[in-house]
C-alpha cells in the first residue's frame, strides 16, 4: 500500500481521466502529469500509488517514467529552461546560446540550482525551427534567442 494519495480534487480529475479510455492502463501518461502537478515530482511512493490506481505492477509505471523525458523524477527548479539542440538550431548558433545561458545560470545540462530556482536541460528539436535558436521556458516557447534577450529574460524572471 502506498503512503501517498491524491487530494479529493485531484481524485476527481483522475476519475475524469479514466473515463476517456476503454482501459485503465491507458490513463498512465495523463495520470503521471496529474501526479506531477499534485506532488511536484514523481517519487517512488508516487510510482507505487499510480500502479495501484491503474492496477499495473509498479515496475511498469517506472518503465514509463524513465522511458520518456518530460516527467520529473526529482524536484525541478521554478523555471525549467529546455534549450533546443536540434539541427536547425545548431545551424543558427545554439551552441553559443547554450554556453551563454549555462554560464549565466552556472548550471550544466540536467542540473538544478541549489536555490531551486532554475533547471537547465538540453533538449532535442522542439518543432519551432523557424525561430531558431530557441528554447522552452516552462510551458512557453521563446525563439530568436540572443545573449541580450536571454539576459533580459533572466532579469525579468522572479
Amino acid at each position, binding site marked *: 500500500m502506498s503512503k501517498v494519495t491524491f487530494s479529493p480534487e485531484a481524485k476527481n480529475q483522475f476519475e475524469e481521466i479514466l473515463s*476517456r*479510455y*476503454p*482501459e485503465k*492502463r*491507458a*490513463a*498512465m*501518461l*495523463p495520470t*503521471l*502529469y496529474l501526479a506531477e502537478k499534485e506532488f511536484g515530482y514523481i517519487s517512488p511512493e508516487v510510482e507505487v500509488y499510480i500502479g495501484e490506481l*491503474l492496477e*499495473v505492477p509498479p515496475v*511498469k509505471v517506472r*518503465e*514509463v517514467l524513465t*522511458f*520518456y*523525458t*518530460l*516527467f520529473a523524477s526529482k524536484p525541478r527548479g521554478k523555471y525549467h529552461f*529546455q534549450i533546443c*539542440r*536540434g*539541427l*536547425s538550431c*545548431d*545551424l*543558427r548558433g545554439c551552441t553559443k546560446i547554450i554556453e551563454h545561458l549555462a554560464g549565466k545560470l552556472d548550471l550544466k545540462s540536467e542540473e538544478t540550482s541549489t536555490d531551486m530556482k532554475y533547471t537547465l536541460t538540453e*533538449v*532535442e*528539436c*522542439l*518543432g*519551432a*525551427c*523557424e*525561430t*531558431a535558436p530557441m528554447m*522552452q521556458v516552462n*510551458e*512557453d*516557447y521563446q525563439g530568436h534567442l540572443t545573449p541580450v534577450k536571454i539576459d533580459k529574460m533572466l532579469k525579468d524572471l522572479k
Partner: protein
Amino acid sequence: MPAMAEKIISPFFDIKNSHTIDVYEKHGGYQAIQDVLRNKTPQDVIDAVLQANLRGLGGAGFPAGRKWSFIPKDSPKPKYLVVNADESEPGTFKDRYIMDNYTHGLFEGIMLAAYAIGCHKAFIYIRGEYIRQAENLVEQRDAARARGYLGKGIFGTDYDLDIVVHRGAGAYICGEETALLESLEGKKGWPRMKPPFPAIEGAFKCPTIVNNVETLSYVPSIMTKGPEWFANIGSERNGGMRLYSVSGLVKKPGVYELPLGTPLREIIYEHAGGLLDGRELKAVIPGGSSSPILTPDEIDVKMDYDSLAAIGSMLGSAGIIVMDETVDIVRSLYVVTRFYHHESCGQCTPCREGTGWAEKILKRILDGDGVPQDIKTLESIGNHIIGNTICPLGDAASMPLQSYLKKFRHEFEARVASKNGTGQVVEETVEDWN
C-alpha cells in the same frame, strides 16, 4: 511547374482568432461534414480521398484513402481514429501551425475520417512539449462540444463522435504509429512488429487508423471542392498541396503552402527568400533530418514523394533544412546522429547499439581524434542498421550516415587525420570488411 492554386490552410495563419469556431465557419468551415453526414456514405468519403491522391503527410506518404479501406467493415469491435500530432522530426513544425491556426479544420478532417471508417472516438496524440497547443485543442474541443459538433449526435444527426486530447511525454519514437499506439495504451513507446497492422489490430486491439494532422486537415477541402480539384494540383499520384517547413540558413524560415511537386529551388530562393547574406548553398535536407541529404546540383528536384524517391531521397515530413558554405557537414551529421541515439527506444539490437556507437565516433572525429577507419566503420554501421530493425527509426538513423558520407566524403576524409591524438601515424589495420 504545377498550377498555382488558392491556398487552403495557410491563409488562416494571418487571420485573427482563426482557431475559433466562428472564424472557421465564416470562412466556409463545417459545411463539408454536415453535407457528408446527411448526404454521403462512408464509402463516398473513402472514394473521394482515394481519387484525390491524398498521401500521408507525416512522412510515410501512404495513400490515405487506401489506408482507410483496410478497416474491416464487418468487425464488431469499436474503430478508433488516432491523430498523429507527435511532430518531432527535426526541421518540421507545420502541424504546430495547423493546430494553432486551423484548429477546426483539423477537427472537421477528423470528423470526416471518423465517419469514413465508422469511428466514434478519436484520440489526438500530441507531443508533450506542445503544451499551449494541447490547451488550445482542449479548449476548442470543448467549444465544439458546447455547439453540438462533438458528443452524442453531432450536428443534429445520430452519429456520435468525441475527441480525446492525449499528451505525449517526450519521445520522437512515438511518432511511429505502432509506438504511438503503445504509448496511447499507457506503455513505453516500443514499436510493434507488423502484421498485424493497426487497421486490423491497433489501439486496444481494435481496428485503428493513424493519420497525421496535416493529412486530415486537407480532407474538408477535398470534400467541398471535389477530389479532381485536389488531384489536379500537384503531380501524378501525389495530389494536392501541402505545408513545407523551411528552416536553417535562409532569410525567411517558416511554413509555406505549395502544390506537391514544387521545385526545391523555388521553395528555397523564391518563397524562403534565399540564403542569408547571399551565401552559397552547400547542402539541403528535403524531408526532415531522416531524409538523404541533397547537394546544390540536385535542388531542381520536384518536391513530391515519387520524384524525391527517384533520386534516392524522400519527401518525408517536408521539413527543409538549408545549409550554406559556412556549415561544418561533419558536425551536422554528428548533431543528427546524436538525435537518433537520444531517441532510439532501445528495443532492437542494430539501432540501439549502432546509433550510440556512431555518435561516439563522430564526436571523436569532431574533437580531432578521428582515424581513417572511422569512415568505413560509420558507413558499415549505417549499412547494417538499415532494413534490419523493427521500425523505421533505424532506417532514419542510417540514411543520414549513408548519404552524408557518400556525398561529402571528402570533408570526412580531411577531418580524420592519419595521426592519433599523440601525433603518431596510425595505420589502417582493420580488415576491409564492409
